[in-house]
């Protein structure tokens, strides 16, 4: 019989670094990553699963980290926006966001980048429809999406 507990020691690997922490069962993954691991690149936009600002890759799969408990991520390999640039060298996608002015306030950008990263891994040269579908879970209230779309398209070309 597996045990029932209100907290547990979890081990996660985030952007290649292993962390071991005691977490309460009620803690959302986004709070764990931001508050306990001090990786504040991933944002909390809506806290209701709608906006996608907290998107990250868990075991290679794109998720909204406000709809996953930290305790559920025990043993997982996690990638966040901080893991994209390698030693300050922007990824092709990040550079493309800069080149295409794909952000204004930038609040949604960490989530957009992770969704687009997941998309480009699955479809290295995505169609327009695939880009739109791939970014569907991420809301931007500044850009009207057009420059984000262009940035992803250029990064995938």
């Amino acid at each position: 019989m597996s045990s029932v507990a209100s907290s547990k020691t979890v081990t996660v690997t985030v952007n290649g670094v292993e962390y071991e922490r005691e977490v309460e069962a009620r803690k959302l993954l986004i709070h764990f990553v931001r508050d306990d691991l001090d990786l504040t690149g991933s944002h909390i936009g809506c806290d209701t699963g709608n906006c996608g600002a907290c998107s990250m890759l868990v075991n290679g799969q794109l998720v909204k980290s406000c709809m996953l408990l930290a305790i559920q991520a025990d043993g997982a390999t996690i990638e966040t926006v901080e893991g994209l640039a390698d030693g300050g060298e922007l990824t092709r996608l990040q550079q493309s966001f800069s080149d295409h002015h794909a952000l204004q306030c930038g609040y949604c950008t960490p989530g957009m980048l992770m969704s687009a990263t997941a998309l480009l891994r699955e479809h290295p040269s995505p169609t327009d429809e695939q880009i739109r579908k791939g970014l569907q879970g991420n809301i931007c209230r500044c850009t009207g999406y057009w420059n984000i779309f262009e940035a992803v398209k250029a990064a995938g070309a």
Partner: protein
Amino acid sequence: MLLREVEYAKPGSVADALAILREHDGARALAGGQTLINVMKARAASPDVLVDLNGLDDLKGIELAADGTLTIGAMATYTDVLASAEARARPILGEVCATIADVQVRNRGTIGGNVCSNDPTNHLPPLMAAVGARMTIAGESGERTVDAHDFFLGVYLTAVGPGELLTRISVPAGKQDGFAAVTLGADGTCIANAAASIDGGRVRVALGCVDAVPVVVTADGPEGVGAAVDAANLMPPFDVHASSEYRGHLARVLAIRAAEQAAGRS
């Protein structure tokens, strides 16, 4: 959002999960969490114990039998269905799963969670009713199987009782299916939806969003569907998105669209 204090268990077997659900009055199964975690934030649900089903690998399979029956494990995600070659035996399943929310939600949300939450605006309850799915429920005394018709009992209420789990859904062979919806945004919440399936010349249409459970009507062909919906005397609920009358109108239009889509397939 800080959730209310909760305990957590991640059982490694269905038997183990059932035992924990039985032993704790306030225990609740956690599938994909794409609904439950959010209603916990809103305190609309406050389980004492979350029984995480994500360790139950035998509930994640999608299998196709020789007679064409498709069996989908309750913990298969929408993404699993989209990626499954077997699931293409009944194409409507993947087509509908592709329109649920967004990539992130499809990666976590499960088939079992969708039907067990039985939100009247969900996509899968009417779809399962239309295709004649059968649900297998495990409990202390073993397994039982119920028809979709007997599975959906009320808003957020299904035949899965306390201490029980939905383990799998079987969908009979068939291809002449359709689905139509009017949603908030491209793949958003349904204001009204309808699923249709043609079997032996009869078309069966299940209407979502118009009552506590899917409303099933049948007709000899798509041309009879409008009259069949009229005869059902729908009294749909109203909200900020649609009056009762408008939602009823949408249901009729969508029923015909879904039936025509089904009839157009061979």
